[in-house]
Each structure stands twice: as C-alpha cells, then as structure tokens.
C-alpha cells in the first residue's frame, strides 16, 4: 500500500451558467482542476506547513461558487485563502462560505463580469509535514579535518500527497497563538457562539456536491521532473530573521515517505580536537570535543546551520574504513560561530584535581568575640595525563560557588583565562604518554572577610 488513506483532494468549480439575461438555468457541477504548481513552506519550529496551490480555472459570467473540500488530511480552515493572481481580470471574490453541517469545506463566491480564465492561488496551513536536519561528520585519521555533510529529512505524515512541489524549509522561531493541528480539528472553522441557528436549506445541494467531489478519482501521482546528475541543490536565503532553504526543482512529498536531501557538504573542514574537564557540567569524565567554524574558510558558506543531530565517524584507513566515534546534537550554528561537538568521555585522558593543602587564616571576631569571618586557603594541583597516542589539548574549567575568592601562584599551565567572576579556565597541551600538573592557590573569603578582602595580602 502506497498510502494508508487514499485521499481525495480536488478543486471544484461549481458554476452557474447565465443564459442571457435574468432568466438562467442553474447547473451544479464539479470541475476537477489540475494543479499547476504547489509550493510547500515547511516550518521547523512548529507543526505547520503553508501550502500554496496554484491552478487555472474558467469563470463564467456571473457568480461562480468555487468549492474546496478535503478529507483524510487536516487543514486549518481559518488559514484558507483564495487569491486571483491577475488583479486586472474582471473577477471579484465577494465572500467565503463555510457551509453549515459540512466539515472540511469552503466555498468562495467569485463574481465575473466577463467569462475568463484565471490563475488562482489557494493557500492553507496543514500539520503533519516535518523536516529535520542531521549531520554526518567523518574525521580524518589525524583528526585535523572532517568531511561534514548536512542533510534534511523531509517527512510527510499529513495524509496527503503533494506531487511535484516546490519545497521551502523555513528555520526560525515563529510565534503562534494556537496549534495548527488543533485548529484543523475544530468542528467549526472559527468555533461557535452560544446560540444555534436553524438548518441550512442548501444542505441537500451541498451534500450532493460533496458526493460528486468524493466520487472523483484521486490525483495520479506524477513523475518527478528530470533529475540532475548532481545532488539536488538547496538555495539558502534570508527572510527577516528566518532562514529559508529552497529545494531546487520540484519534489514530490508522498504521504508516509521521508526523503533525505543534502543541503551542505564540505569535504575538508578544519577541526581542532580538544578535551574538556568541567566537573560542574560533566562530572569526573574528560569529554572529547571536536570544534569547527561555520564560515566560508571551512567550506560551509556564509549561512547559519540549522540545529540537528550529528553523528561522528572516525576514518581508520584509506579504504573507507571507519568507526563510530560518537554523536551529539548541534544547536543552531550562526554564520561565523565556532561550534564544539562533544564525542563523550575519553578514558585515555584523565584529569584529577586535588587539594594538596588546606588552611583557615585571617580569623576575625566581632565585638562580642564571636567568630565572624575567615579565609580558606586551598593549594590545588591538577594532575592531567594523556594515555593516548596523540598530543592532547585539555581545557580545564573550575567554577566556584561565589565570587569572593582570589587565585594566585599559578604554575604549569599553558594558558589561563578568567571567564567571569565565578569561573576560570586553564589550557594545557600534553604530549602522548605524557603528564602535566597545574599548581595554584585559591583563597576564599567567608563571613565578614568577604567585605574585607581588599585588605588581604596577596599570597
């Protein structure tokens, strides 16, 4: 079975033939029209896809009711829009009708002063179509470069096929008042007031029209346009604070299927491998990180990368052999930003911080001789060892619970950085099978000493 639901999706024109003057015969009929073009704007931050369905219709002189109905899929009726592309045509949309006791139906009343053909655009929101970026990174054997491939998986669970669609993938956070899926499930397009009206005398006619529509054959799934020998290009563009990725050519979004399409591929992204010890974030393990910059120099262009899962592999030979090195989830990576991929703890690198000496000094007492403050002096050694076969750069972060401290006597580090008032970082490079120790002293001020710290002599 290609689809669980064989969906009916048809566009009908119920038109009234005006036969010379006020005396006219009225014929209700349904004209199945072919889609000329479908555009799908699939949003990432919400379960929302904007479908723009362009068709050509023939309008007779007089009032033309244009009926649109759907089943087996969900459409937010409050988002339905019907537009005539050429505003110079003698057409006017006088009103939109949501018939009583008929779910999933809308009728536009189009008045024509002259018979004509017109291109119309039907647009609506529908849930159930998703896209999800994910990345594959293959590290070189020496871990100095990686091949980064970004792909999007476009998945259609809407219950509806969208053949030969132009697909736009939209990133950025949009503000919504209601979930589109909820709006699509409402029994009445805009809800209902407390009181009920009477039955609609047009009910039978509408039912007949609907039966006609539902007896129509479903659209045939059409062939995709000729494929190019290159992967389908994805054009990136900005719209305000949103990024839009547009797939080149047409793409059939078949219900139930998902497609993986490459949107970025860089053969040789320079990477730096480093190890991070941060007990406040990772506990006692030393995390292995791979960092790269999202910029032109890396071959990644000048656009942000949407967030997604990253699977990292490590090349082990020149014959395509590789092992799985770890996975991470990348958040949105703005252009020019350096990003760190975490590959999990590396047992070959160890970092052991130790307090080698502890003392309480500068005890202070208040006027009643109660203990009111003191300094804690800790002499630290951080023992770092590299049991791997490669040189390792290790960043060691330390976080203190309050900013009332002084650090002194730092030895053994390659770099030191005070990140903020509570955090600092050491960086060291350790050769294979090598060890390195960092020594420093932290004086922490407690009680009244926090107010007197400027009087503390530096150690």
């Amino acid at each position, binding site marked *: 079975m290609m689809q669980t639901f064989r969906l009916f999706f048809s566009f009908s024109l119920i038109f009234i033939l005006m036969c010379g003057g006020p005396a006219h015969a009225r014929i209700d009929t349904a004209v199945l029209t072919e889609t000329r073009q479908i555009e799908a704007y699939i949003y990432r931050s919400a379960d929302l896809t904007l479908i723009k369905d362009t068709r050509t219709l023939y309008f007779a002189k007089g009032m033309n009711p244009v009926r649109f109905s759907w089943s087996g899929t969900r459409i937010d009726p409050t988002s339905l829009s019907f537009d005539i592309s050429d505003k110079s045509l003698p057409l006017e949309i006088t009103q939109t009708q949501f018939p009583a006791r008929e779910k999933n139906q809308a009728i536009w009343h189009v008045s024509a002063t002259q018979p004509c053909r017109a291109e119309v655009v039907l647009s609506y929101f529908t849930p159930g179509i998703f896209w999800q970026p994910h990345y594959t990174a293959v590290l070189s054997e020496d871990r100095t470069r990686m091949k980064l491939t970004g792909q999007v998986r476009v998945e259609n669970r809407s219950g509806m096929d969208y053949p030969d669609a132009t697909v736009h993938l939209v990133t950025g956070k949009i503000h919504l008042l209601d979930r589109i899926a909820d709006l699509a499930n409402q029994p009445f397009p805009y809800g209902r007031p407390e009181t009920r009206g009477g039955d609609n005398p047009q009910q039978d006619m509408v039912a007949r029209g609907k039966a006609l529509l539902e007896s129509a054959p479903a659209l045939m799934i059409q*062939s995709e346009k000729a494929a190019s020998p290159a992967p389908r290009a994805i054009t990136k563009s900005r719209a305000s604070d949103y990024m839009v990725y547009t797939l080149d050519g047409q793409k059939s979004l078949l219900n139930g299927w998902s497609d993986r399409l490459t949107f970025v591929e860089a053969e040789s992204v320079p990477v730096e491998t480093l190890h991070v010890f941060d007990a406040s974030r990772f506990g006692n393990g030393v995390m292995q990180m791979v960092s790269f910059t999202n910029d032109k120099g890396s071959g990644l262009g000048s656009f942000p990368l949407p967030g997604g*899962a990253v699977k990292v592999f490590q090349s082990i030979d020149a014959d395509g052999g*590789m*092992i799985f090195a770890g996975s991470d989830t990348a958040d949105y990576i703005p252009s020019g930003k350096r990003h760190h991929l975490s590959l999990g703890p590396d*047992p070959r690198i160890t970092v052991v911080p130790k307090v080698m000496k*502890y003392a309480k000094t500068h005890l202070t007492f208040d006027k*009643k001789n109660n*203990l*009111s403050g003191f300094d804690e002096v800790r002499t630290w050694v951080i023992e770092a060892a590299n*049991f791997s076969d490669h040189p390792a750069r290790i960043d060691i972060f330390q976080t203190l619970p309050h900013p009332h401290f002084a650090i002194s006597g730092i030895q053994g580090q390659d770099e030191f950085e005070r990140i903020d008032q509570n955090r600092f970082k050491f960086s060291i490079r350790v050769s294979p099978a090598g060890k390195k120790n960092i020594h420093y002293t932290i004086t922490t001020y407690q009680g009244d000493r926090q107010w007197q710290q400027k009087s503390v002599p530096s150690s």
Partner: protein
Amino acid sequence: MAAKIGSFLMKSRSFGIMICSALVTAGLILPALVSADTRLGILPQPDAVHIRLSNQNPAMVQEHHQISLGKGINQVAFSWSGVRLDPDAVLLTPLSDPESVRVLSAAMPPDGAGLIWQVYSSNDAVVPMILSYLPAGLDSLVTYTATVNARETALDLDAKLILRNFSGQPYESATVRLDLDTVFSTQIQDQETRQVSFPIPQNPEMTKILQWDGQTMPHDPENQDTAVGVPFGYEITFPVNAVRDTFDLRPGNVRIFLEDVQGRTLFTGEDFLPFLAKGDSFFLETGRTRDVIITKRRMKTDDIQVRRNDKGTIQVFDQIITDRFILKNTRTTPADIRLIDRITGQWEPVDMAHAYTLEDHETLRLDIHLDAEETRTFDLTYKILNIFADKFTQYNQVTYQ
C-alpha cells in the same frame, strides 16, 4: 514503487538486511519504478563485512559491495526487517571518483525499514561501495583471565572477546576489528554468542599488596564478631615504555587464578577492571586475608588554644591527636601493605612515627613492609587547627570548591 521494492525485499527473508540496486532510466523517480522500463539489478552479496568495535561506542558494520550502476540515475535500495537501525546513521559511500559516482538523495518508505538512494553514475560501471550502519543488538564484551605464578610476582593475562549478535542479522563471514591490531574473522548467526581469544602482546607488571583503608575497614578487627580480613590483590601496570602495539585494556571482568607450588591452578577471586590505558595502574582485589591484622586506636585527644566569646561559648579551638597503628603479620611470609588513612580539616604533623605520602591534603598513604610473623606498632600525632565550635561549623569539613 520504492515501497514495493522494500516489500519485495522484506518478503524474501523473515529477518535481515538486504541491499539491491535497481537500474532505471535517468529521469524517472521512485513511483516510476513500476514501469516496464525498470529492471531490477543484481542482489549483491557483500564482498566483505567488517564489524568495527570501538571503545564504549556501538558496533558499526561496514559492508563492501560491488554494485552495478547504469549511466544516469540509479536506485539503490537497502531494506531491513527484524533489525533495528538508525536510518540517519546508514551511509552509502562510493569508493570511486566522486565526480563519476555521486549519491544524490535518499528516500525512506512509510514503514521506516528501508532506504532507497538515488545514485548518479556517469557511465555503466560496477562500482565498489561501502554500506555502513549501526545495528542495535550487536555488541561485544571482554573478559580476562589472570594467572598468577606461585611466588605471586608475575601475572599472565589472557583476554577473550565475547561477540553477541542479537541484531536480527546473521553475518556469515565477518572481519571483526577490535582495535588497530586486533582483527579476526568469524561468522555469527543471529542470537548467537561467540567467544574469541585475542592476544595481549605484553603482560602487565604486577605487585601483590594488601590494602587497608581507614574509611572502610574496622579499626578494631579483633573485637569484631567475624574476622573481616584485609583486602589483598594485585596492582597491575603497563609500563610506559610498553611495546608500541600494546593496547589499552577495555573494561571487563577479570578472573584470577593462582598456580601453586604443587602445580595446581586455584581460582582466587575476581574483580572488575575498568578501562585501563597504557601506562595507567589499577588494583585488582582478589580476596581478603585474615592472617594480617591491622588495628587503629585513638590514644589521645587534647583540646588546646580554646577561644571563647564574651558569653563563654567556645568559638575556635585546636586539637592534638595521637592515633596508634598495630600491624600483625601472622603468616610465615612477608607482607606489603598499603595503608590509607585520612585526617580531615586543617592539620599539621606533630610527631609522625612512620613515613607517609600525601595523596591529597587529607589522604595519607603509608607503604609498609612486614616481615614474616612481624608485629609493628607506631603512633601518628598531629594537630587539627581552627576547629569551629559555634558558627561556621560546616567548614570543619573541607569541600572541593
């Protein structure tokens, strides 16, 4: 049609993974595969299958295939049934000129158990490709057997790799790669477990020690209802200058055997070895001895330098403490003991009758050699400073911050 390809493949086997290539006229897409123009290509058996086992990461399977491609756009289908795969981690990598063969895109059918790649080829060709995936249920364990000589001076370490295949996919002939140098061939059926020995190029160095930790051991064992015994075992270390192809030891259970002087092999215990990198050390506990008795007694506590507030409440004071250690070796052989004890807070030595090494500010390590049937007694006297008695008492314990 792609769905039909998937169905076709899945019907062909109850469980398993299958790859096939479908050559179609360039320009047609998946639904068009049902057309008369479609000709299903060969169902290639992989030339080689590699199971890559890396430390602490899932097993990765790499299949080498020769896939016939026609000029233009080809469909290469890969489906699985009864196998759990992460479809985002299934990679198809052509091993040819990237300009002549390119993977364009992939599609996944509604049942989510297959992938169909569109592969462009500039010519009719048979192209080597690697299919890589991470099947759930395929993993490995390592177990060790350590055989210690009668004098307990050397240890022979054997390792076995346990390959467990509960992935749903049999592997008739696979090359299993544990690390750069440990590669072997095997076949393994679904729901089968195989054990394979692999060599450890160089045995680690070992030292037998008894390890007494004051934090966990009773201080007065002779007055306990049952004799607890002092843990003993072997500290193993790969020397830093180990041969190049000596690799790290993966985590696993170690069963320890002793070859006694009569030539018997005695099981003496087991322990869990965590990841042990080259050059690192680990203490494998194998049992407890009741022939060495270690007693710790507090002999004296003096409060000094007592400071009170105006109401007479003690604010701060120091203590001088004397702890006595009594070590009895009732055996007829010597014993090497590692004694670990802790002194918390701010302290300084006063009269320490035995040499010690500071592991950190509060942890003392004493390495003690006892001769056969020797009893040794020594005192450690130290002063704890600035003990808070009224306010800030939480600072009598040192925190790591």
